[in-house]
């Protein structure tokens, strides 16, 4: 009985503790004591849950950028103070995290990664007039309200949209690869891949191509042979496989093992050093994907980023890491241009971005808050990445 009472007390104390912790978190509404010496930047990414690897890589990229900026003297003579939080890959959690960050007086937020989680965070950022930089949210309606066609004032992104990528690949297939028909076999468990598939299909068919098969897989799948067998019998000239490398690498490997030799294309989700190690150099021959940058790009800025990232995290940076890095650097640049760490001024500076030299391309922000930059089509050739 006594022990039981003690345990109850323990539980109660834990409970109290968590409330106190909760208070201390969102509570310093008026805490201005640090206002003078640092500029707070929120990093709200998926560190747990199904897309934890994207979120943590982007956060790593952003943190690396901030570290470099601080080492070089910071922004406006102040150090950047990154507040990294986990949104659990859930939109409502993303909203709650944003609100907590807003309570901490951040000047802007980087993240989340997926369009859905950015959408969760959006209302809070809009209401509080604090800019949000999405590193990798590619859905068209992230920055523009589709119903009213109005730009979401405080939402920006540093990646291009699903529509851009899907259309680019459709044109590439029709014009450069000279194919007339294609099969689509993409992930159905996220909006990113279904978006790519949708815009690819629209562009491809409107320019005279035909879609001979349309299939889907679910993130986490490991076995694609059943559907591939089916696609093989439809005999397409090209297969579009929008999705993430985690599944795509295995998929391509299995496709080649089954004797599917036609060109295969995809989007930036393919980008990972793991592609070659999982699928194998040979299987990847004759595959193409649209991307932000290539780790093998000899450009010195890219190579120094890759080196720094490798030194700090002991692995190669993928697209998410590069986009997180660019988002943080673009933000620092915008704060510098704004002249003061005021969210609204930073937002205006972001809107005025022109030819910012990011490692994922030189970008300007257009009137819809999307970056204008080149979409690279990358070809795998014997395990090497060749820009087309």
């Amino acid at each position, binding site marked *: 009985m006594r022990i039981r009472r003690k345990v109850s007390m323990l*539980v109660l104390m*834990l*409970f109290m503790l968590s409330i106190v912790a909760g208070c201390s978190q*969102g509570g310093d509404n008026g805490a201005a004591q640090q206002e003078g010496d640092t500029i707070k930047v929120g990093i709200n990414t998926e560190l747990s849950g199904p897309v934890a690897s994207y979120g943590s890589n982007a956060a790593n990229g952003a943190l690396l950028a901030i570290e470099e900026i601080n080492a070089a003297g910071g922004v406006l003579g102040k150090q950047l103070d990154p507040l990294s939080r986990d949104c659990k890959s859930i939109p409502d959690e993303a909203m*709650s995290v944003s609100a907590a960050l807003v309570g901490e007086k951040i000047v802007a937020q980087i993240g989340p990664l997926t369009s*859905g989680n950015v959408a*969760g965070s959006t209302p*809070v950022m809009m209401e509080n007039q604090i800019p949000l930089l999405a590193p990798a949210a590619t859905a068209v309606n992230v920055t523009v309200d589709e119903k009213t066609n109005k730009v979401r004032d405080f939402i920006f992104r540093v990646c291009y949209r699903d529509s851009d990528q899907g259309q680019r690949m459709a044109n590439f297939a029709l014009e450069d690869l000279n194919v007339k028909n294609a099969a689509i076999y993409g992930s159905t468990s*996220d*909006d990113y891949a279904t978006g790519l598939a949708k815009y690819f299909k629209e562009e491809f068919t409107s320019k005279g191509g035909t879609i001979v098969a349309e299939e889907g897989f679910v993130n986490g799948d490991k076995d694609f042979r059943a559907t591939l067998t089916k696609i093989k019998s439809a005999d397409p000239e090209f297969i579009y496989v929008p999705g993430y490398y985690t599944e795509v690498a295995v998929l391509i490997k299995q496709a080649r093992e089954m004797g599917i030799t036609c060109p295969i294309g995809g989007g930036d989700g393919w980008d990972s050093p793991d592609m070659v190690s999982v699928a194998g150099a040979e299987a990847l021959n004759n595959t193409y994907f649209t991307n932000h940058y290539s780790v093998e790009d000899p450009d010195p800025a890219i190579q120094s980023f890759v080196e720094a990232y490798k030194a700090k995290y002991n692995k190669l940076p993928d697209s998410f890491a590069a986009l997180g890095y660019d988002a943080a650097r673009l933000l620092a640049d915008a704060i510098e241009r704004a002249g003061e760490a005021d969210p609204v001024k930073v937002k205006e500076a972001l809107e005025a971005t022109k030819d910012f030299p990011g490692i994922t391309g030189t970008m300007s922000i257009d009137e819809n808050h999307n970056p204008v930059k080149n979409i690279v089509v990358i070809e795998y050739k014997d395990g090497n990445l060749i820009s087309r």
Partner: protein
Amino acid sequence: MQKTQHFKPVQFIIEVGILVVIFTLVQYLISAGLLNQYYQINLASICINIILAVSLNLINGFTGQLSLGHAGFMAVGAYASVIMTTYMELPFIVGIIAACLAAALAGFIIGVPTLRLRGDYLAIATLGFGEIIRVVLQNIDYVNGPAGIMGISKLSTWPWLFGSVVITILVIVNLVNSSYGRAIISVREDEVAAELMGVNTTKYKVLAFVVGAMFAGLAGALYAHYFYIIKPETFNFMKSFDILVMVVLGGLGSTTGAIIAAIFITVLTAALQSFPAIRMILYAVILVTVMIYRPQGLMGNRELGRRTFGRLWGDKK
């Protein structure tokens, strides 16, 4: 332990008074801008989680039927309400009613065949149905498939949230503390004996399931109109587990336990945001520790209520 119900006007007035005070106080704090957004969001989460936990507790705790598909009903409610408000541009109340009806209907359709199953077989069947609902939503273009619906107006204001919580608790507590509730509890205690005492156990299992699903639908509607976006992935089986954790942590068959656990888990989740790297590890450790030291849940199957408070006040029954 159920007490016989008498209508006690004084107590009734006091209770209504307490509710009015809580409501007005929070409403004042919000409108005066004293409650920052972060607290407001967590408050909304708490309200939604209370509704989910209390309603699942009706199924798992009082009826003793292990259901792992609660997130599926929440999804049905969320989508039904959004179709009403965002697609058809009807008022929120229509959305709420549609959510409740759609989820209740889903509960009925799923409950009638599956409630013949027992224990873990029922658990897996309900989990399966929950996942089927999610996969189906993912494949319906009308609701944007996996991308979900974005740009839902924020209609779940404090009066709606508070009112919904009060109604949920009231309906379920009133149901449980009635002859119908005793019939439901008898199913949990001993299905065969209950049946032989004239209780149509199937009917009461389905009843509990439908009522539970209905309130999950309500929670879904409130969720959708607070968090701006819904997508099928949000309502996967992990969400069902989250709700189950609250119910078990609070104590199966204790409504106050479910409420306390819903608050506890929501606050804990929010508090752990500050430890991004070890957040889930801490959560896991706390969960396992609490379960080992308090396997019957925080409240067991007892209720914290008038009697307890009565005792505190030195009031003899």
